Structure formats: C-alpha cells, structure tokens
C-alpha cells in the first residue's frame, strides 16, 4: 500500500480533474458547433413554416412553403440540372482513377504532372469564376485552342449562352477543379497498398491491367465508394460553378442557386428554408440508399472473396506457367 489517503478520495480528485479538463477543452468547440450548426438547423426547420423576411413580421403558414417548392417551376425543376453534375462527377472519378493508376507506377516527372493537375483545387472560387468567364468568351481561349485543332469558329457554340451546351461547360469547370484532388486521394490509397504485392505480381509476370484489377482496385474500393457517394450528394447541392460564372442565368440555375436567390435577394426566408429542408431530406435518402447499395454489393463481393482469391491465384499461376513455357521454348 502506498502512503495515500483513502483510494476513493484519490480517485475522486483525479476524476474531478478529468471532468474539469473535459469541460474546459470541450466547451468552446461544442458551443461553436451548437451556435453555428445545430441552432440554425433547428431554426431553419422553424422558419420553413413561416412567411417571413429576416427583419419584420412573421406569419405562420403551415406547410404552404413546402407545397410551393413543388409547384414553382424554378424550384423543383432546377434539381434536373444535378444530372449534369452527376455525369460530370462520374467522368471526374474515372479520369482521376486512370491518372492515379498511371502515376503510382514509375513515371518521369510525376511530381510536376501531379502538381499541375492538382493546383486548380487551390484556386479561390471567385478567381475561378473570372478565369472561366474569360476562358469561354467567344473567340477567346477555348475557341482559340479548338481552332488550333481545326474547328471553325462559326461552327462553335456560345459556351455559356447556348442552353444546349452551357451546363456542360459549367460541369467541365468543376471537373477541371476537382479531378486533380481526387487523383491525389487515389494515389494515396494506392500507395497504402502493400508494395510487396506489386513486386510479387511483377515477378509472376502479371500485366498492368491484371495488376490494376487484382491488386489496386480491391485495395482502394473503400475510398472510391466514399468518393462516389460524396460526388452524388455533391451534385444534388451543386452551387459554385453557376454562382461564380453565370450567376444562374440562361438556364444554369441549380437548386441551390435558386435557393440562394430566394433567401438573400428576394428575402423569402421561409420558402428558402423549406427548399433547404427538402433537399437535405433528399440528400440523406440518397446517401442511405447508396450506403445500402454498396453494402449489398460488397457483402456479395466478400462472399465471393475466397473464390476470387482462388481465381486470382490460378490466373497468376497460369501466367507464370506460360512465362516459364515461353522461356523454355525460347531457350
């Protein structure tokens, strides 16, 4: 026994200190979290039942705001635009995965390529707006480059005005901005796969595609899944490209653009809140469905895992045998 008073007292004082530290260390972040996230979240829910501005009278209107969201063309119809952004994010993930695979093997100047492709992620939104207004202006950068490639200026559309094409132009800017960042994430994931696996596969003579399919892809499926989920929910709340480039004009107003204008320009706070709540519900539903979907896919994949592993072994063995065979034939 040590020379302590009662063990209970000692514990209590240690515990007391613990509680004190916990309170001292957590009170500020929790307060901030409450004031800037959960309090407004609750308030927004409340606002959605009122006809109100930020200042002045508020009138309770029940579910009228919610009905209006579905009735007005500019609100709910704008969600259709998120399909463009979903398509864009698929393209973006594919490009990122392709480039990450290339860069995870030995490549000359890989740091420079990586840096060039990543840098757009670090540019501030308003600068991006100006850069692309300039880029897409008639006869300017994009048109000039296309003319170098042999296109005639007269056959080219107005990239930001032509309603058939302008949403693709905007999605392009978003792909431009984020593909490098996705690529860096994927490279990180690929690098975290055990290097010995690659060496073993190389020794066994597996080709690039086989390496990708049997080693890289299984190693990074978590992060790919995560990015798919993020990008689909992200495309529902697409906001930045039209906000900084076209200001939502010419049929580029996504749901969030319309919501921003209703809230801050027209000051119909109740209606905007209802829009926000509806979109949040849709996003949660989409996230949930995707999680279930991927869980289902992965569970069945895991069930097949022993079989897949056997298949992989067999494939590698076959290649090794062929190698040995051709070496013998050559010798």
């Amino acid at each position, binding site marked *: 026994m040590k020379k302590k008073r009662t063990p209970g007292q000692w514990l209590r004082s240690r515990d007391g200190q613990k509680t004190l530290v916990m309170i001292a260390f*957590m009170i500020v972040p929790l307060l901030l979290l409450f004031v800037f996230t959960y309090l407004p979240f609750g308030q927004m829910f409340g*606002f959605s039942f009122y006809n109100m501005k930020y200042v002045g009278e508020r009138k309770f209107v029940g579910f009228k705001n919610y009905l209006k969201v579905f009735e007005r063309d500019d609100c709910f119809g704008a969600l259709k635009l998120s399909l463009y952004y979903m398509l864009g994010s698929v393209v973006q993930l594919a490009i990122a995965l392709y480039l990450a695979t*290339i860069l995870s093997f030995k490549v000359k100047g890989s740091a420079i390529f990586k840096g060039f492709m990543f840098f757009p992620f670090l540019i501030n939104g308003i600068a991006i707006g100006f850069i692309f207004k300039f880029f897409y202006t008639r006869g300017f950068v994009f048109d000039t480059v296309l003319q170098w490639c042999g296109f005639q200026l007269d056959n080219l559309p107005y990239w930001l005005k032509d309603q058939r094409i302008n949403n693709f132009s905007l999605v392009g800017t978003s792909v431009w901005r984020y593909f*490098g960042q996705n690529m*860096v994430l994927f490279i990180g994931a690929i690098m975290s796969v055990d290097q010995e696996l690659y060496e073993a596969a190389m020794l066994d003579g597996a080709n690039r595609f086989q390496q990708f399919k049997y080693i890289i892809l299984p190693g990074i499926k978590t992060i790919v899944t995560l990015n798919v989920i993020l990008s689909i929910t992200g495309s529902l709340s697409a906001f930045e490209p039209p906000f900084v480039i076209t200001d939502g004009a010419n049929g580029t107003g996504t749901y969030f653009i319309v919501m921003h204008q209703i809230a801050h320009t027209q000051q119909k706070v109740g209606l905007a809140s209802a829009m926000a709540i509806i979109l949040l519900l849709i996003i949660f539903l989409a996230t949930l469905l995707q999680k279930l979907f991927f869980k289902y896919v992965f569970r069945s994949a895991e069930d097949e895992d022993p079989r897949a592993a056997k298949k992989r072994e067999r494939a590698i063995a076959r290649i090794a045998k062929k190698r040995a065979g051709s070496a013998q034939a050559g010798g």
Partner: protein
Amino acid sequence: MEGMKKAGRSCLTVLKYFSLVFFSFAAVLPVVSCVITAFKTDEEYQTTNVMTLPKSWLNFTNFTEAFQKAGMGRAFVNSFIILVCVLFFSVIIGTQLAYVLNRFHFFGNKIIRALFLFASQLPGVAMQIAVYEIMYGLGFINSLLGYIIMMCGTDIISIYIYIQFFENIDYSLDESAIIDGASYFTIFYRVLFPLLKPAIVTSCILKGVGTYNEYYCASLYLQDKKKYATVATSLYTFVGPLGSKYNLICAGVIISLLPALIVFILCQKQIYSGLTAGAVKG
C-alpha cells in the same frame, strides 16, 4: 513474340505520357491564358488574339492598377488577420477536443464525434440561410471578429487529423507523466502538444488554404467591401463596368492566387498527405 511485346509496351508508354501531358495541359491552360493576358497593354489586348504572347513580360502596369482599384492592400491585411486568428484558435480548439475525444472514455464520446460528422455533411450554402439570422442577431454582420469566430467552428477534417495522430502516440507517455504527478493540463501542453507539431502543420496548411479561399460567407457577412474585403471578395470589384477589361481582371486574379501558389510549392507533401489523412477517415 518478344518484338510485339516490346511494341505493345512502348505503345503503352506513349499513351501514358500522352495522357499525362494532355490532362496537365488542360489543367494549366485556363491559368496560363490569364497570365499571358495579364501582361498585355490595353491596346495589345484589344488587337491581338488572347493566346498571342505579350510583347513584354515586364509590363506590370495591370498588376499595380488591379491592386489599387480592387483595394487589395487592405484586402491582404484583412485576409492576413483572419488567417492568423482562425488558425491560432482552431489549432487550440481542435487539438484540445481531439485530446479529450481520444484519451478519455466517457459517456457521450461517440455522440460528440457523430455530431461533428453529421455537421460536416450539411451543405454550407443551405445552412447560411439560418446562420445569417444568428449572425445578424449577434451583431456579427460587417465584423471581422464575428466572421473569425464563425470560421473557427466545425472542422471535422482537422479534428480527424489530430485524433489519428493521438492514436499513434503511445499512452505510456501519459501514464508516466501521471505517475510523476502531472495534471492533465500539463500532460496536454507539455508532453503531447509538442509532439503534435506535424499534424498541426498539416491541418494549418489545409485550413489556411480553405480560409484564404473562402468567399461565400465572406461576401454574405462582410458586406462593406471597402473596409472588410478579403482577397477573394476584393475581386468582386471587377464585376460591372470593369467587367470586360480582362487584362486588368486577369492581373487581379493572378495576384489573388499567388499566396496559394507559394504555399503549394513550399508544402506540396503536407497538402497531399493531409488530404489523404482527412479523406480516409472521413
């Protein structure tokens, strides 16, 4: 057989470098065209094609004019104040929170983590509808202090980076300090905080770039563009009558992204690893 294999491999190599060059070109083209235009005089800008190189690479008049017209001197001071304060406070808040969440097991630990995770999923633009009312109520419109306090709030990525780092610090360090009679405050500030340095650097770079580039809340809450513009929102000067003088605008844009470029060149590794660390857990 061997020959075909060799041909196939060199074909792949060509494809590989072609893809890299193509996508790198696509990534830098919009920025490079801005740089080219920023060095052109008004007359050159009006008479030459945008991709024609400027006569002189030493023509900095657009840069000085853009800097003055957009009040970027003031904006850089504001951005600097915001950056320093936000980083300072969020490092303290974030490391302390991560320490408690990682080292202490108590009822509500998981709930608090879940609350932060959920908060990070809420789209910011939607939340600002109601946050605006709160900022208004607190008198935080047109107040640098208010904006700074708001920006110190939820930041799940740095918290994750810190928690991950704490997980790799052996608990025996804490234990031996406890045996020596150190209080929890002492353990945190004397023993653990210095060890966190790499994680702090990483999260500061990420959060720093994010704060410097933030423009949506800045334009909502710092409406007085003369006094409280940040570097990002100072670019709004070029909307309107100056909207077609792209040689001037491009110069402003280039000035605004120089700090990010410098940080990127100096700290590439930390940026990459920070992003990866934040993403795997998130």
